């Protein structure tokens, strides 16, 4: 409840300074990134595996969506395929985990992200390669979602559904198996948990959410190119879940608020304060760095947990 009230207050603040339409557009991006972040929370926070390539699931989801819609498939029908593409990426990413542990496995996920980026660049007939791919607005039946309000409604609706599913997963047998494996590998193995299998499922679920988020992102941007889905995106997502708190499902939402809206707030302040406007180009980077370092040092459970 408090969280909802805080979000509403932030939204009101954004609307007050940038207008309702702009606040809604921000909400659409926040919800989309929270969706992808939620997937990463399942992988990192619940199953305890570090994924450095979560952007790849978003990339495949976005391109699946973009290619299908360009081929004339209805956007609403393409979204499940986008989620499926993300799921497949997740499953592939999890395969080396059966042989590798911890950091080495994390490196293999990073390699996957690079391979996906390069693949998108090379599959010119399908993806347009470096020239990019123009994605028309999302349409639900005959209703074309141009307006920020509609974009925000769709993103928030899907995020709500995803949070509900993630809650059920967290409280299920599978969720307990994830946490058991995260907290003590050998104990989990001793009680008969097939760690490779349950971790693959975590990657599959997380990948599905990443793919779905990618599918939405494709429409909200309207233009895809492989370079948008490089390593910086994967690191941004990782930063997102750690800022929000990796162990809580709502952490993804708070992380997304910071990642999406903080630069906007800084830009708005820059416009208002003349002597800041043209100076200190790297301010956002520095502030993000400070936030990450400060949180890891003093509030390892994330921003929201800190406020409570």
């Amino acid at each position, binding site marked *: 409840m408090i969280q909802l009230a805080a979000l509403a207050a932030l939204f009101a603040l954004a609307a007050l300074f940038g207008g309702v339409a702009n606040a809604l557009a921000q909400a659409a991006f926040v919800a989309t990134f929270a969706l992808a972040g939620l997937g990463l929370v399942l992988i*990192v926070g619940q199953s305890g595996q*570090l994924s450095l390539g979560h952007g790849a699931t978003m990339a495949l989801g976005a391109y699946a969506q973009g290619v299908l819609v360009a081929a004339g498939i209805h956007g609403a029908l393409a979204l499940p395929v986008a989620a499926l593409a993300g799921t497949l990426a997740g499953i592939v990413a999890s395969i*080396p985990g059966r*042989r*590798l*542990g*911890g*950091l*080495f496995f994390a*490196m*293999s996920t*990073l*390699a996957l992200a*690079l*391979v996906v980026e*390069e693949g998108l*660049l*090379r599959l010119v007939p399908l993806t347009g390669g470096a020239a990019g791919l123009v994605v028309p607005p999302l349409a639900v039946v005959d209703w074309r979602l141009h307006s920020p309000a509609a974009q925000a409604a769709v993103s928030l609706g899907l995020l709500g559904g995803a949070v509900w599913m993630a809650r059920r997963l967290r409280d299920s047998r599978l969720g307990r198996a994830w946490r058991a494996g995260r907290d003590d590998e050998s104990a989990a193995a001793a009680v008969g948990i097939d760690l490779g299998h349950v971790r693959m499922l975590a990657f599959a679920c997380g990948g599905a959410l990443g793919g779905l988020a990618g599918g939405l992102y494709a429409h909200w941007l309207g233009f895809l190119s492989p370079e948008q889905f490089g*390593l910086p995106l994967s*690191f941004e997502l*990782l*930063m997102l879940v*750690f800022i929000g708190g990796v162990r809580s499902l709502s952490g993804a939402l708070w992380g997304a608020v910071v990642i999406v809206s903080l630069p906007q707030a800084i830009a708005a302040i820059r416009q208002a304060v003349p002597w800041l406007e043209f*100076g*200190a*180009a*790297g*301010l*956002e*980077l*520095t*502030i*993000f*760095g*400070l*936030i*990450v*370092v400060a949180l*890891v*040092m003093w509030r*390892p459970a994330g921003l929201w947990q800190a406020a409570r």
Partner: protein
Amino acid sequence: MLAQVLVGGLAAGCVYGLVALSFVLIYKATRSVSFMQGELLMLGAFSAVVLVEALGWPLWAAAPAAVGLLFGLGLALERAVLRRAIGQTHLTPVLMTFGLGLMIRGAVTGVPQATHRMHRLQLPWEQPIALGPVQLAPEHLLVILATVAACGALALFFRHSRAGLALRACSEDAGVAAILGVSPSAMHALAWGMGAALAAFAGVLLAPVTFVEPGMGVVALKAFPAAVIGGLASLPGAVLGGLFVGLSEALAGRYLPDGVKDLTAYALMLGVLLLFPRGLGEAGRPR
């Protein structure tokens, strides 16, 4: 022709190897993977540029001074931030170094002179040197010689100096080392300082090759697989991993289809990881 391509790969591999060394040095002593080595490399190169261009120092003085400055920065960061990672999961240092890297990049980007144009450290001579049929650019020769020298110096340091032996002891077993009178926290600081200094060393060497600009740290993305291929815990392995990656890339760029070159490092890393989960450097050793 082939020899020429291999020499180019060798020089690139030396840079990868030096950065990989810095990863491994840190990893061995602190069990942390640093995600800021690229930024430290960039900052080291910029420090040298500032000393040369703004203060008018000669290159031979500016280069070691920049490396020294970054050594100090490594110590300071360890004291202020990274010390808190001791005893935490491997995620903690990953995030800390990532955040510190962002701060370094943000700070450099905020300086107009750093982003308005590229900078260069001018070597005293420019003409390529002929070695039989192979032409060697002076900056490549410098990279190769400096890598050999750095490896030699590190080997001496770890075999014969008190600090080096202590650092090694600490890496093997911090508990036993502490009983023997080695201060693990001092060694932790030393490892981060040396890791930063090595990255800066690589940055100064890279400066004549690729020029100095805020994005030059991306080379660390190639050094990382090199370190992993070498086993992440073996110093000679790191250098060999770097050379392996550099040479493979050069061959892939010459003979394989377009685009393969950029994936070579990661394809090799995946292959090595799946075949030898503990890296090539440790594959032969008994557990």
